[in-house]
């Protein structure tokens, strides 16, 4: 199949292209320099249209047990947003914790072609993959959670050699078919099982005696030494606790230059100034990030309305359960491996704390200079459902709209925020960095997030409009691996996405040790824990894509 996309205005930051009119050529799902004189099977006239790579959501809870717990917890949320069977699309439901099928359709309808699940429990990775396999139209991948699993904590507290830890980390990534390592409230999920209710960066785990700082350093080093492209993906200590900005700043300095990704940093940027002892730490965070080139972040913007928070952080979720709206929540201790907490939440624009959270997220976006190191997320669904992204993009690109919204929120919060004085407006080029090129680079996806020759033809075409929310809500065309899947915001073809993974090398000796551990303490055998290729590819839907690791390099 040969396709020509003619005369679109291309934003392709990975290749330095900022709004140039270009033709693009697709041969059998890949972008090529030219068709070598062959007549295209299809041609699309994109004159006057904006062309970008398909968008990549690098942190979105689209699979894994906690999402299904959220689904089971919220039948009322589904009832309010039914999605009838329509054309090629099967029925489902939407809003905060949509069904997998609807998740895929809605992402694609917004021009997204990839999404990465950030909280894959090793023991539950199989479920995450099965759910993600039922998300159509989207490439997927997962970050596997370590840091509160007892095997790792035992290694660390025993003062094991970093080499051994590296082997375990690599083995886990491969067994779970992941693309990165996530750590959630380092050690805290385990500590909660021992009835510890707080665990600050330098506080000792009551049983293992190790600190979150040690855990972070050890895992960040492992990820780095294994050459895994995506830096350690960190959900830090003290999520949501006023004053946690200090913890976050200490976390940044404490990693000693190792690459680290701090996720949903909005929830970790709270000061204790003012009458209400709750204030924005965004400026200090942004300053630290601007100064530390080893750090990347995604924001985890909150937007007002009903949603559900789903997290591996059972400790903090349990602490926050009193704020559940509606009043119901689930926390779980899981398999000496991790945990989870699901707490529905309603962010209200008239509520002081929520309004300030909204400001803090936007301040963070606008105060960080380098768009290659900040990513557009709402931590779906924790800050808001992913369907709010076009609205968020407009808030970033349109200062007067932003200020109009600022005028509607809790006035006390608005007065405390510097947001109104920030003039910055994101450009289309910067949006393309944040949602495409940067995300692909951060994850080591060499053939995604750009439009150069050799890239997979995941392409989104928009009509430029003054109202950026409208523009990004409804692309004209979306191509997935070279196939037209969305036209005028409607799904016209359903394809299944790929699974992106890395396969770092490790010394097989770790397996004997793990086998014994599984036999003694776990409830399943090691061989049944490891996910086989047939489990992903067996039904012919998904393809496993392995991205290279560059072991041993240290920047």
């Amino acid at each position, binding site marked *: 199949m040969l396709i020509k996309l003619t005369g679109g205005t291309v934003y392709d930051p990975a290749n330095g292209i900022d709004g140039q009119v270009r033709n693009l050529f697709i041969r059998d799902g890949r972008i090529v320099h030219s068709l070598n004189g062959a007549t295209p099977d299809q041609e699309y006239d994109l004159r006057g249209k904006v062309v970008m790579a398909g968008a990549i959501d690098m942190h979105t809870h689209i699979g894994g047990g906690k999402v299904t717990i959220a689904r089971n*917890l*919220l*039948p*009322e*949320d589904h*009832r309010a947003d039914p999605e009838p069977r329509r054309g090629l699309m099967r029925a489902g439901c939407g809003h905060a914790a949509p069904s997998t099928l609807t998740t895929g359709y809605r992402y694609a309808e917004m021009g997204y072609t990839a999404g990465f699940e950030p909280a894959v429990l090793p023991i539950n990775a199989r479920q995450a993959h099965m759910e993600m396999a039922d998300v159509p139209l989207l490439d997927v991948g997962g970050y596997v959670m370590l840091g509160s699993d007892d095997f790792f904590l035992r290694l660390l507290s025993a003062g094991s050699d970093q080499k051994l830890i590296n082997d375990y980390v690599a083995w886990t990534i491969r067994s779970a078919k992941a693309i990165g390592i996530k750590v959630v409230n380092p050690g805290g999920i385990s500590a909660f099982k021992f009835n510890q209710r707080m665990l600050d960066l330098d506080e000792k785990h009551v049983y293992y005696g190790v600190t979150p700082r040690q855990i972070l350093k050890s895992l960040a080093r492992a990820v780095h030494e294994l050459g895994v492209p995506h830096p350690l993906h960190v959900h830090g200590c003290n999520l949501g606790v006023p004053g946690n900005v200090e913890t976050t700043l200490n976390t940044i300095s404490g990693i000693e230059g190792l690459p680290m990704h701090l996720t949903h940093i909005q929830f970790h940027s709270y000061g204790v100034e003012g009458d209400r002892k709750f204030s924005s730490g965004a400026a200090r965070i942004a300053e630290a990030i601007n100064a530390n080139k080893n750090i990347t972040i995604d924001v985890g913007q909150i937007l007002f309305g009903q949603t559900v928070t789903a997290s591996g952080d059972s400790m903090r979720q349990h602490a926050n359960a009193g704020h559940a709206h*509606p*009043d*119901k929540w689930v926390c779980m201790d899981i398999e000496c491996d991790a945990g989870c907490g699901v707490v529905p939440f309603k962010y209200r624009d008239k509520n002081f704390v929520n309004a300030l959270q909204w400001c803090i997220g936007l301040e963070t976006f606008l105060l960080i200079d380098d768009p290659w190191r900040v990513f557009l997320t709402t931590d779906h669904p924790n800050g808001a459902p992913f369907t709010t992204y076009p609205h968020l993009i407009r808030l970033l690109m349109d200062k007067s709209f932003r200020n109009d919204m600022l005028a509607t929120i809790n006035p006390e919060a608005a007065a405390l925020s510097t947001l109104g004085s920030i003039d910055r407006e994101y450009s289309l080029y910067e949006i393309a960095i944040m949602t495409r090129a940067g995300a692909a680079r951060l994850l080591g996806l060499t053939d995604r997030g750009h439009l150069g020759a050799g890239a997979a033809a995941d392409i989104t075409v928009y009509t430029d409009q003054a109202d950026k929310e409208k523009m990004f809500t409804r692309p004209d065309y979306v191509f997935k691996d070279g196939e037209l899947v969305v036209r005028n915001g409607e799904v016209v073809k359903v394809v299944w996405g790929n699974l992106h993974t890395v396969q770092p090398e490790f010394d097989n000796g770790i397996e004997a040790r793990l086998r014994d551990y599984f036999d003694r303490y776990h409830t399943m055998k090691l061989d049944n824990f490891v996910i086989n290729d047939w489990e992903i590819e067996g039904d012919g839907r998904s393809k496993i894509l392995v991205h290279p690791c560059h072991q041993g390099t240290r920047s």
Partner: protein
Amino acid sequence: MTALSFTLKSPLRQRLDASPLVPDRLLGKSPKEIATLDLQYGNRRIAAADLFDIAGDDAESVRISGSPKLDFAGRGMTRGSLIIDGDAGAYVGMHMKGGRLCVSGSAGLYAACELKGGIVEICGNAGDLLGSALPGNKKGMSEGVVIVRGDAGDRVGDHMRRGSILIEGNAGMYLGARMTAGTIAVRGRIGACAGYAMKRGTLLVYGSPVSIGATFNDCGLHTLGFLPLLLKGYQGLNTCFSETRACRSRVRRLVGDLSVQGKGEILLVA
């Protein structure tokens, strides 16, 4: 003008969603538009005239011939009157906000669920979960009055939030379960586990003896000033609860459910 009436041509096989047949949605429609109203029946859509003989012209006053498979009758209605001649299926009066709904026979599950206003009268029996919240919802009936002339099923007023349910017959188990406020009065007997996990609200129970769970504590016999006021409020509804004799009775006050730090009360009329 005569009531706009819908008479079933033959018994229903699958369940029918009768929610479009309410005054709000029929007013201003021509006979032809009404005849071609699209109704959900089983897994198909069907025109109203294919199921019903339609007569009359007063859309403020609607009558539908009953069936235990006639669901969602009166859903969300805000005005006028709707009479089900015979039985109603599930969800009769769901989300209703105003007007008057009368079922001359019995009603199925979830009658008056999440009722927001108006008066629902069920002349026969009501099924389980009368005046309750839908699964996952925390708020059941939040306003309005429900009258049951016969017996009510289990779990009357589950998560009830406000308003009154008046049952002239008996009530099943779990009367007022998880209730947060409102009043349920039962003239006849009640089943086990009354007030289960109720937080607030009043169960006014006439039939005795009843066994009340261990998580209710006895506060003794009292003459409560609010009762005459409450019962006076039911005058005009033509129920046994407004009889003057009942107004001055002493009641035994049981408080609970202590499992949820409950401040609800079961008042046993002596």
